[in-house]
Every structure is written in C-alpha cells, then in structure tokens.
C-alpha cells in the first residue's frame, strides 16, 4: 500500500529541513494529503516538461549526451522568515567584506602589510591579477553576482562552505523550479505567502546600470557567453531574456579606441556593460590566454581605461580561493569590525605544517579539497574513501600540501526527497545569490541542491546532484 508523502519518511539522526521547524506545519499537512503515487505522477509530468523546454545543462564527461536535465525534486525545501533574515544579513556582510578585501588587495594592500592575510597566499595565487592593480571600479564593486554555499550541520547550525564570486551559476534553476512548482503543484503553494523569486533579472539589470562607466546614464548592456556548447548556456539564455539584453559571444565584439563594440546588421554599436560568463583567463587573448577563441582582443585595455564595466570584475577569484576562505572570519572582523553572522566550517590550511600534520593524522575523518578546483572535482571524503583512495590522497597532500585544505566531515542536513522506493532523506545545501550594484540585494531563498545518491554528500550537478524549489516564508 502506498502511503502519503511523509508517512514512512525517517531522517534518522540527521537534521531534517522539513521536520525540525514548526513553521513548516502547514506544508507538512498539505503533503500528508498527497499520496506518493500522485506525487510521482506529477513529478514525471514536470520532468517531461523540463525536457521539452530544453532546460538542460551539458555534461562534458559523457560525450554523446550533450543535454541533460538537472534532476528536479518536487518536495520543496523550506526556510522560515527569521532564519532567512539571518542568512540574508550574513550573506550581505560577507559580500561587503569581500568587496572591501578586493579593493584593498588591488590598491594599498593594508591587509597584507598588517600580516592579517599571508602575502604569498594572495600574490602567489593564480587568480590574483596584477593587471587590476590601481584600477578604480564604480562603487568599488567587484563582486556583482555572488553565490554563497551554505550547509547545516547535525546541530542545526548554518555554516558557509564556500564563496563563489567569479561566475557562479544556478540562479536560472531557482526561477525555473518555482515556475514549474506553480504549474505542477498550485495546490501546495496556494496562499502560503512565499517570497517571490522572479524579479532576479530586473534586479541584476538595475545593479549593472548602477555600475556602468562614469557618465553613461543608459548603458548598453550585454551578456557574454562562451556559446551554445557551454554547460550553462541555458542559464545564459535565461538571464539575457530576463534582463532584455543581447546574448553575445566573443566573436560578436571588438575593441577600437579603447571602446567595446558589437557587430550588428546596421554596423558597429557601442557596448558599456558586459555581464560576462567567461573566466578571466579567456576574456582577452591579448592579456591572458593567447589561444583563447572565446574572448575579445583588447578588452582589458578598454576595461582598465574605465570605458567598459565587466561583471564580475577581473581578479575576484583570489577572494573565493579555498585557502583564503579559511581567513574569511578574520577578514570580516578586519574590514567591518563585526563578528561573522554566518560561521565558517573549521578549516585546516595544509600549507601550514601544523595543519598538514593534523590532516594527515586524521585523514579518515576529514574531507580533503584541492583549492583550485570547482564543481566538486578532486574531493576525497575520508569516511567514505577506500584504503587505496586514502593513500592516493596522502600522496597528493605530501607532494603539494599548499594545494589542499581539509575540513571535518559534516553530517549535512537532509530533506525528504522522492526516490525510487518512496520518500527518503537526502543531503542538501543552499546557494543564495547576491547581486551588488551600489549596494547588495539577496534573492530570497536560492538554489537548494540535493545529493540524489543515498548517503552522498556531493550535491554538484556535474556529480549526480539535483535541485529543489526553495521556499522562503514572508
């Protein structure tokens, strides 16, 4: 017999996002009136819709499968209003500190001279861009779009796992997931009083106008994408549409007299603001990778001359480096004189001999991460690793300790998720998105990623993760 959605759900010892909070009672009641069978039918219809809509991402490792749907779980993740207020405050605080840090690093470097942040950690970092030294940006805003990855531990405490301040992706799923829930489960959302998410594009467009080059009131904005084969191309389309701006590729742009132009049917048209979804390295073959076909030769010249705004700014990667992350609580205190609203996961910086020794001694209990990688690649989860994997990890650590950090293995919180044999707990994280023009705004909720494999802690879409709609109550 098929019960209702939550009737046989048991999160065990993990913190459950659905059951732990009294504010979720109305939603739990609505779910109790749905059978698993009906949930499954509606989920299948929603999934078919995603496929027809072409809401897909690209997986590089499977060469014959270009388009895949980001698996979507129909049971929402809920955030009560008071908790959201704390997350919002914490994210704004963090982004403010990161912008102050970047301005300082690319100007007087007080924080390095004080010794609060080790000099070589910054200056030796491949994401530190000397070209940015002394460049003044409108509103001193470097990180116009940020995605801050949060997790919750066994005790219910929210922790920052990672800052993403280069070209974070995933926001399109936040909006599309909500649209899909509104179509498939109107009865579940009805009159709950949820914070809306669909004005993200307007907020971003407004913020980008604020940071346009000086003297330009109605800037021509474009979104620069690597093209249709990029894994996030769907999102680029989504954002260009939401903002009402052209989606361009490098070959559509050129630089003349330190100005950026795009090729149109009527000749060249000026470009003032570029929301770029291309990494620093590929932006300008004249300044970085010579062989890059994605970028625009001369773009850095126009940028440094203040004739065009790039969002995010060049060189922000030095701030979301996994090694710099460990210093973030100190960075917040240094620039803002405040205690962090959201704590870090305790982190060992393996470049420090003490931390390396600790990591090697506790390898089986720790998560070891390479500092340069994104997308969940190269991570060793100690408690789940085989003896051989642990040995391989040890060898890598000894060969290049500065490339690694380690963190305790956190029993991430779970949320009820529709799986093959019913509704079961799966680990989740949360990536709120923050937009910064003259000031910072946070999209209510964010992307909840869910590790669909039983027991898995890795939620990245490239590693078998899915997503959930995230509901913030008013």
């Amino acid at each position, binding site marked *: 017999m098929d019960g209702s959605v939550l009737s046989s759900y048991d999160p065990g010892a993990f913190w459950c996002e659905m059951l732990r909070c009294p504010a979720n009672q109305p939603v739990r009641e609505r779910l109790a009136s749905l059978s698993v069978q009906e949930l499954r039918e509606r989920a299948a219809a929603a999934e078919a819709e995603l*496929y*027809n*809509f*072409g809401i897909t991402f690209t997986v590089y490792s499977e060469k014959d499968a270009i388009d895949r749907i980001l698996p979507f779980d129909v049971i929402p993740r809920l955030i009560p209003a008071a908790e959201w207020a704390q997350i919002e405050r914490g994210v704004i605080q963090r982004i403010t500190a990161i912008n102050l840090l970047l301005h300082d690093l690319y100007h007087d470097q007080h924080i390095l001279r004080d010794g609060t942040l080790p000099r070589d950690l910054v200056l030796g970092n491949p994401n530190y861009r000397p070209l940015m030294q002394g460049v003044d940006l409108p509103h001193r805003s470097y990180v116009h779009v940020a995605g801050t990855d949060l997790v919750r531990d066994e005790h219910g405490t929210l922790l920052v796992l990672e800052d993403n301040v280069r070209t974070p992706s995933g926001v399109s799923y936040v909006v599309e997931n909500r649209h899909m829930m509104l179509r498939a489960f109107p009865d579940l959302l009805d009159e709950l009083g949820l914070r809306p998410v669909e004005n993200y594009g307007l907020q971003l467009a407004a913020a980008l106008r604020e940071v346009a080059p000086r003297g330009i009131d109605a800037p*021509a904005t474009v979104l620069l994408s690597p093209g*249709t084969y990029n894994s996030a*191309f769907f999102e680029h*389309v989504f954002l*260009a*549409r939401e903002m*009402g*701006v*052209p*989606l*361009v*590729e490098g*070959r*559509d742009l050129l630089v003349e007299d330190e100005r950026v132009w*795009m*090729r*149109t*049917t*009527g*000749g060249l*048209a000026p470009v003032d603001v570029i929301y770029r979804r291309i990494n620093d390295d590929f932006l300008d073959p004249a300044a970085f990778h010579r062989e890059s076909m994605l970028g625009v030769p001369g773009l850095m010249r126009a940028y440094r001359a203040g004739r065009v705004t790039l969002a995010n700014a060049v060189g922000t990667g030095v701030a979301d480096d996994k090694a710099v992350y460990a210093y973030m609580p100190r960075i917040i205190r240094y620039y803002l004189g405040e205690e962090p609203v959201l704590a870090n996961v305790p982190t060992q910086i393996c470049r420090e001999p003490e931390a390396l020794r600790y990591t090697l001694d506790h390898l089986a209990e720790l998560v070891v991460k390479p500092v340069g990688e994104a997308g969940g690649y190269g991570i060793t989860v100690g408690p789940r690793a085989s003896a051989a994997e642990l040995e391989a990890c040890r060898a890598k650590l000894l060969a290049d300790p500065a490339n690694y950090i380690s963190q305790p293995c956190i029993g991430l919180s779970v949320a009820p998720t529709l799986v093959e044999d019913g509704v079961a707990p799966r680990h989740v994280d949360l990536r709120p998105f923050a937009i910064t023009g003259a000031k910072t705004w946070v999209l209510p909720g964010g992307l909840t990623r869910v590790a669909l494999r039983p027991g898995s802690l890795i939620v990245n879409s490239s590693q078998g993760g899915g997503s959930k709609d995230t509901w913030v109550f008013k």
Partner: protein
Amino acid sequence: MSETLLARYADCVFWLARYVERVENLARILDVNETFSRDSRGSQNWLSIVQLFSDEKTFSARHAEASAENVLHFYVRDTDNPSSIVSGIAQARENARTLRPLISTEMWVQLNMFHNRLGALGADELSPGRRNRFFGSVKEACQTHTGITEGTLHRDQVWYFYQIGRYVERADQTTRLLDMKYHLLLPRPRDVGSPIDVSQWNALLRSAAGYHAYRRLHSGGITPAQVAGFLLLNRRFPRSVYLCIRQTEMLLAEMKARYALRGGNDAAEVLDGLRALFSTLSITEILKQGLHEFLDLVQLRLIAVSRHLSIAFFGYQPEDTLEQLQQTQ
C-alpha cells in the same frame, strides 16, 4: 537596443527559416515520390530523388542500391547526411537554441519537441503503409512552426530576416521540384499526355500543394507548359517562384528603410533583375530557351542573393568562399 540586431542572430534566423522550409519541401517530395518514381513501365525509380539533390556520390558511398528503404533512410533518418530531415531539424534547432533570447518559448519548445520526436523515430514508421502518415506529421510540424512564428515572433528585424530566409528557400525548392520533372523524368515524346505523364504532373502539383489552385485556374486539363508556368510565374500561388522573389524583394526594401540599414543593395539589385526577368518572360519563351537552363540560372541568382545578404548583414567577408558561409550547404 531593441532597434539593433546582432549580425550573428540575423544569420541564425535566416537559416532557421530556411531549414524548416527545406524540411517541409523534402517531406512533400518524399511523400509524393511513390507516384513520381514510376516510369512508363510502372516500376519504381527512387534514384531520381537522389539525382534531384545531386547526392549521387554521398548516397552511393553508403548504399549499393537506390531502393525505397535506402533512399528513405538516407533522406529521413541519416544523421550523417546533412540534407536529411533529421539533420535539417537538428540544424534548425541549433539555430533556434542560439536565438532563444529572441524567439518565443513556444517556438523553441515546439522545435525542441519536433527534434526529440524525430530522434525517437520508430523502426517501422517508414514502412510502406505508414510513410504517408509520417510525412504528413513532418509537414504539419513544419507548418505548426510557421504558425507559432506568425503568432509570436516580434515584428522587428528578426522577423524580416526570418521571412526573407523562408521565401528564398521556397523559391529555390520550387525550382528544384520543377527541374526534377523536366530534367530527370523527361518524358519521351510518345509518353506526353499518357496516363503516366499526367499522373506525374499531378504529383508535382500536389507536392507543392498547388493541385487545387491549378485546377481552379486551368479547368481544361493538365499540360506541362501550364503546370510549369503556374509554379514559376503565377502571382498569387504562395509557392510560385515569382511570388517568392517578389516577397523577398519587398521585405528587403521595407526592412532597409524601416531600420535605416545601409547594406543589402547588392542583394536588392539581383532580386530586381530576377523580378524583371520573371515579369517579361512568358512560359513559352522559357521553354523555348530550355527550362533546365532557366532554372539553373534562377538557382545561381538565389545563391548570389544569399551570399550578398551574408556579407551585408551577417558579418561574412567578401572573400569568404561558399563553404565558409557557415551554413550554406
């Protein structure tokens, strides 16, 4: 910003329209080929389709015999054949994918589903009893695309380039269709007016959806000259070459004026010459000159129009060869 259009998008929308139009015409031709391909002895000749598209080389590299199964496989499901239905819709979808910021979600979803449907084509959907239904569904999907486009595509430059692409492709396809009958199935003098000959002319008209319109205009019966004249010169028939050229010319002039575009004069000049040719020549004169030669000339001029548009609006260079014009096959 709404007044400017990225050159690359103009290229994509032009070819989006062309690929869908091309697939629709291909479905029409394959659909009526059962009738077409019977020679005077009643046996089937599917090779004529291969010859019509000048694909003899590629086809014979893959298939020993021009059987119905082989030819249909080649023109319907063969993903390695750039002129198959599957490839055409894949190309249309790729262009639509690039154009997603500009086209409606409905346009994209329909093309995406059409593409998915072709990718899941059943093994027996091309069997003799089911072919007709399949080609009907392809035609209908193409027409659905056109209808959604009519109802949802913003009437700015994008729309103009879409329409121009559609008419240029349609003009080209109609010349090929005529050429097939005249060049490849050239009747022996004693066959003219025979039941086989008449049924082939019928089929030709039907493949262009012109049978009934023709009947209304020419109640006297079917003559080769009148059918050719109808498909080439009729001023009201939506698939006649004349109408397509006239539409292209008008759309280009209107777009240039409305958006103050300086380029495109070369294309306008070629179109002007073509239209002049079509308004002065009668079908008798064309047949006297040789229909095949005339159709060849029209096809070359249409290629020239496409090339001039590519250089004026799509960002190509005058020295680019035909192959470099990214999407020209």
